[in-house]
Each structure stands twice: as C-alpha cells, then as structure tokens.
C-alpha cells in the first residue's frame, strides 16, 4: 500500500496553509501510515538546501518520503546537488505510480 500522497504545489513561504498541510503529513506518518510528499511547481522551492530544512527535515525525520519533480527543479534553476538532505528527485511517472496503487491523495 502506498499510504497517503500529498502533492505540494505552493511556495511554502507564501503562507501558513501549506505549512499546516506539511504538519498533517508528518503527523500521519508518525501515527497512521506511510506518507509521501511530492513537491512540484513552486512547492519545489521547499527542496532548496539551506532554506527548506525547517519545513522538510522534520517530515523526513518522521519517516515521510519526500520527492521533488525534476521538471519543477529545472524550471527554477535548482540543481540536484543543492537539495535538502533526504529529498529525492523523482519524475512525475513516480507520482502516477503512487496514484495507480490507490494512494489517497491531496493536492495543495
């Protein structure tokens, strides 16, 4: 079972709503089931090293699988060697595979 999938498309610094959803993802991972966060579009900004640790490192520590869309990284000039530790670049096909496994999904 793929667990839950959260698709993060917003820059986490543009408001608190996205941060609350990241907290929900961490809580689910600690108490209920496997969780994957897929960062795409401006959500990829969270993956930047020396910036996104505050948001993503607690998730990774809680066991959340954090993936980032390479297309979104490329569009924003974020190189793969400048990602928060533990974040994995994963093509959108990997997101499709999770959806195909039936993972409940939330886009925010």
């Amino acid at each position, binding site marked *: 079972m793929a667990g839950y999938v959260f698709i993060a498309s917003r820059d986490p610094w543009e408001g608190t709503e996205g941060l609350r959803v990241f907290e929900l993802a961490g809580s689910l991972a600690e108490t209920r089931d496997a969780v994957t966060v897929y960062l795409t*579009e401006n959500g990829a900004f969270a993956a930047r090293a020396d910036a996104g640790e505050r948001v993503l490192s607690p998730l990774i520590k809680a066991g959340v699988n954090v993936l980032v869309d390479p297309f979104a990284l490329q569009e924003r000039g974020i190189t793969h060697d400048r990602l928060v530790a533990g974040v994995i670049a994963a093509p*959108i*096909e990997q997101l499709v595979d999770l959806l195909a496994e039936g993972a409940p999904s939330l886009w925010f």
Partner: protein
Amino acid sequence: MPRIVLTLVLNDPPYESARTSTAFRIVDAAIRRGHDVNVFAYEGAVSLAFARQSPHANAVHGRDVDGEDHPTTSNWVRELFELAREQSTKLDWVNCGLCTDERGTDEAVLGVRRGSPADLWSFVNASTNTLVIPTR
C-alpha cells in the same frame, strides 16, 4: 489483472496556472504507463478543450504564427487523445455542461463530451484513484 483507471478533476482555465501543465503531464504519463484516464473538467477548465483556440504571432519577438509556434491547450488535449489511441488506452474527457454554457465554449475538440457532476460520480466509482487539482 484489472486495468488501472485514474480520474483527474481539473478546475483552472487555460493559460492561468502551472497546475494546467502539471495536470497534462500527469495525464500524459498515466497514458504512457498504459492506464485509462478520465478527466472531469469543471468551471474554467472546460475551456481547455475549446476547439476555436488559435495560435498567434508575436510582434514583440518578430515572429509570425509559425515561428512563434504558440501552444494551445486544445491542441494538447487533441494530442492526449492521439496518444491514448497509440497506447491502446482510454481517455474519457467530460466537460461540465453548465460551465460550458456559461462560458460559450461548447465547441470542444473531438473526443471531449458534455456531461455533469453525475459523470464525475460515475468516474470516481469506477476508478482506481481520483486526484482533484483545485484552484487556489
């Protein structure tokens, strides 16, 4: 093994948001994986498949229509239907009829059909998974 069927609910109008291109990328990847895909286009998303969209020149850049090669979402929808045929998968695209009437975009590209939220209900019940891509 039963076929995998993914349903996507789109809400954004064309040329407004990165969510549209991401949605198209997901549909493309799912079809290439051999999955059947349903799309329920709601609100402004019904205009994605509007057949009368046309590419334009770009005078600022000194390009004519061919040189500009401006993409239109209706062409992307056409290409997704072609891809589904090539991959022997099914793409079922339903535009919300009331949303279409409100916007006067009832001329959709071949393959797109008119429907209602009842079609979404049917899609969800028959799908492996459903992804709702909301507006902001």
